[in-house]
């Protein structure tokens, strides 16, 4: 019995070793990523691995090179789509190339594109598709029409760029195992090997259907790309240092080890989530009183708060939204935006009628996030006589408590900006999203909603300023900072072609 057991184990070991394919000639890149629950099928739930690999493995109609790129300004790059013509606000005709094939030789027709969109809509992985995409039908072998639910700005850009295209015949015939380990990829790379939740090996497709004027996402600079999932931050820097990995996302406090060392290049980029502070203006919280909100706002400094997580890499926000979208008014950055003035804070606290040390404020945060910043905030507010009680909850529990006005006074949250600042504002303030509660901070204020509607209608500087000043004056919410994250690469890689906050792995350039 014992010998059989040992034999069985040795066999299992041999099988796994073979599957890590040996690198061919040319460049091979090994990348460490902080995510371990990824799926490599055409459509799957969002995650770091999917963000970095979906465009590499699956072709999309178009590609958006930068935040806010617009179709009508023809800033979108055409990938699978040959041309996109607007019929009216909610219908678009799309013509696709006629020579698209996937790695297993299945031809891709308009019907496959329609199938892909319907499949993604039903699975519900990408929220923008769910909100904007209505339906699609093939009007010819290589032509189809897309129908949107409403014509709001940015809708068509989202729909065109967020759905992977796969062959219907292949997808319906493939088993779960095949989809997850050996999919028929339509993008420039195919899957050479997968170990679930541990690594993916992608190899450049010799038979890629497009040869000239390739979009960024269609480059094949590296022959092989290996993605390794290493969730523990310190392990990623160890793997980078002992050469197991060529590129890795390094946590803020480890970056100093690679600075000034010419064996490594560091590329910094803004975290796509920006942090902001919400005040609970409902009647069951002391923050209903504007003086209290202002006392808190002037009672701390964002940069010191960021230093709580052991780094100074971050951009302080001068508005609730980060300075990333085209409609952001640069003037805000010069103006004074809630600096750290303990005496002003003390004055506001007195106006609100509280003795120093009398007021206790509860802040709602996520337990899994680094707790340093909140402890820094707590220490600073204590100097201004405000006691801060940190209520850290498990990610899911925190989301439910966020909707309960009696559970917290202030809350630190984050959101990402995909195209325009007004969309960021709408996420936080628009009554459309919060119904009777008004805004995320339970503020029912009609003028706020008017100013928001005006600003998002035309995005003129005047309206944007009006909304910005109104929010700052009433201190409903204040922007904190946007962390700067860094990707460190070995000396072999010169530029990681950072597009829209995610590196395009196949468009990397190598030092000769």
């Amino acid at each position: 019995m014992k010998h059989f057991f040992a034999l069985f184990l040795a066999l299992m070991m041999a099988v796994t070793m073979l599957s890590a394919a040996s690198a061919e000639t040319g460049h091979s890149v090994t990348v460490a990523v902080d995510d371990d629950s990824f799926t490599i099928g055409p459509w799957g739930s969002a995650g770091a691995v999917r963000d970095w690999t979906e465009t590499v493995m699956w072709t999309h109609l178009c590609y958006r090179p930068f935040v806010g790129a617009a179709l009508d300004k023809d800033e979108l790059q055409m990938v699978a789509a040959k041309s996109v013509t607007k019929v009216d606000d909610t219908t678009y005709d799309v013509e696709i190339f006629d020579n698209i094939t996937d790695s297993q030789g299945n031809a891709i027709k308009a019907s496959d594109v329609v199938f892909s969109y319907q499949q993604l809509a039903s699975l519900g992985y990408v929220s923008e598709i769910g909100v904007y995409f209505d339906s699609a039908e093939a009007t010819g072998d290589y032509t189809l029409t897309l129908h949107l639910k409403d014509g709001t700005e940015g809708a068509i850009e989202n729909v065109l760029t967020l759905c992977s295209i796969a062959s219907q015949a292949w997808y319906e015939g493939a088993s779960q195992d095949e989809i997850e380990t050996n999919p028929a990829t339509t993008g420039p790379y195919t899957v050479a090997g997968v170990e679930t939740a541990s690594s993916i090996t992608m190899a450049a497709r010799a038979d890629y259907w497009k040869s000239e004027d390739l979009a960024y996402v269609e480059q094949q600079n590296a022959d092989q790309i290996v993605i390794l999932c290493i969730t523990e931050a310190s392990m990623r820097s160890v793997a980078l240092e002992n050469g197991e990995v060529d590129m890795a996302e390094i946590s803020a406090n480890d970056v100093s080890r690679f600075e000034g060392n010419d064996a490594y290049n560091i590329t910094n980029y803004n975290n796509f989530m920006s942090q902001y502070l919400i005040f609970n203006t409902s009647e069951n919280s002391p923050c209903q009183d504007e003086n209290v909100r202002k006392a808190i706002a002037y009672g701390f400094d964002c940069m010191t708060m960021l230093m709580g997580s052991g780094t100074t890499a971050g951009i302080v926000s001068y508005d609730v939204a980060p300075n990333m979208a085209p409609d952001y008014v640069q003037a805000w950055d010069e103006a004074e935006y809630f600096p750290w003035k303990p005496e002003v804070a003390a004055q506001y606290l007195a106006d609100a009628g509280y003795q120093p040390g009398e007021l206790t404020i509860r802040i709602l945060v996520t337990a899994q996030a680094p707790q340093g910043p909140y402890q820094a905030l707590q220490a600073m507010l204590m100097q201004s006589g405000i006691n801060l009680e940190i209520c850290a909850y498990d990610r899911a529990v925190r989301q439910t408590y966020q909707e309960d006005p009696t559970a917290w006074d202030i809350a630190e949250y984050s959101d990402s900006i995909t195209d325009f600042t007004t969309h960021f504002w709408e996420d936080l303030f628009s009554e459309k999203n919060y119904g009777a509660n008004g805004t995320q901070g339970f503020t029912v204020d009609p003028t706020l909603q008017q100013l928001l509607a005006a600003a998002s209608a035309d995005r003129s500087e005047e309206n944007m300023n009006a909304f910005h000043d109104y929010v700052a004056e009433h201190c409903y919410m204040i922007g904190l900072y946007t962390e700067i994250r860094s990707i460190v690469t070995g000396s072999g890689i010169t530029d990681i072609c950072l597009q829209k906050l995610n590196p395009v792995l196949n468009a990397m350039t190598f030092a000769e």
Partner: protein
Amino acid sequence: MPEEIRNEVMERQERSHEGKGKGRHGHHRHGKPQDSVKPGSLKYVWRSVSHNKGAVIGMILLALIVVLCLLSPIICRYGYAEMNIQDWYQTPNPNHLLGTDQMGRDLLSRVLYGARYTLIIGITATAMSAVLGILLGAVAGYFGGFVDSCVMRFLDLFQAFPTLVLAMAFCAVFGTGVDKCILALGITGIPGFARLMRANILRIANMEYIEAAKTINCPTWKTILKHIIPNSISPVIVEIAMTISRNGLTSSSLSFLGLGVQAPKPEWGAMLSEARSYIRDYPHMVIVPGIFIVITVLSFNLIGDAFRDALDPTLKD
């Protein structure tokens, strides 16, 4: 049948309190004729424990930590949450005896203040699981039959869940924080005590003095409380010491997964997991809480071992 053997063996193994006595004479100390002290009674256990060098070391270490913890507000110049950013990441120096962390907070005061969390969590969680476990075990052992198999199946059920997963699910339900951590550890500790008590009950239940109590129709709950539990308390002491040390470790693993005690409170496990990303540049931030955890858990283990040796005649020579 085999499960019975497995259960019986498991309790005997962990606590190895082997009442095999074989009718030895009373044990004589220093040649002076002593009233023969019944092995297993507390006085006897205490005398033999105080002879065990390991236990003495353990107790001294523990006392030292508790004293330091109580004196911490006096000896440390800085509050445990007092942040001064300009002297962050300092290695141990005369100003900050054990150095500072990434927020410039004094590690010495944090570690000493933090001692109370590990001790409180360890002790209260163990006390809770001990009380509930003992009652459950006593009831199961004493009544036997249907009640017994129900309780045993329930314990098997508990056994199927890995402890960490159970604690996690628990923290997910009730949220994180010191009290939730105590509840989580307390409940996951119950099966250990229940099995132990049940085994003891089965061993003692058929002793004569239990039948005697029954004959003078003393009520069942009185029999359990006055006769059975006191007599099987000594092996429980071993389990208590061992569980306290195990809880110290589990609570640090919980903090590693982001649950358990939350950040500003300087619980050692949380400090350790928070500082783990600085392990290479500022190792002192990891080593300081680590060493304190090891010392505390070690002293509980040593004391537990001493009690075990004291209680098990076969190990004595």
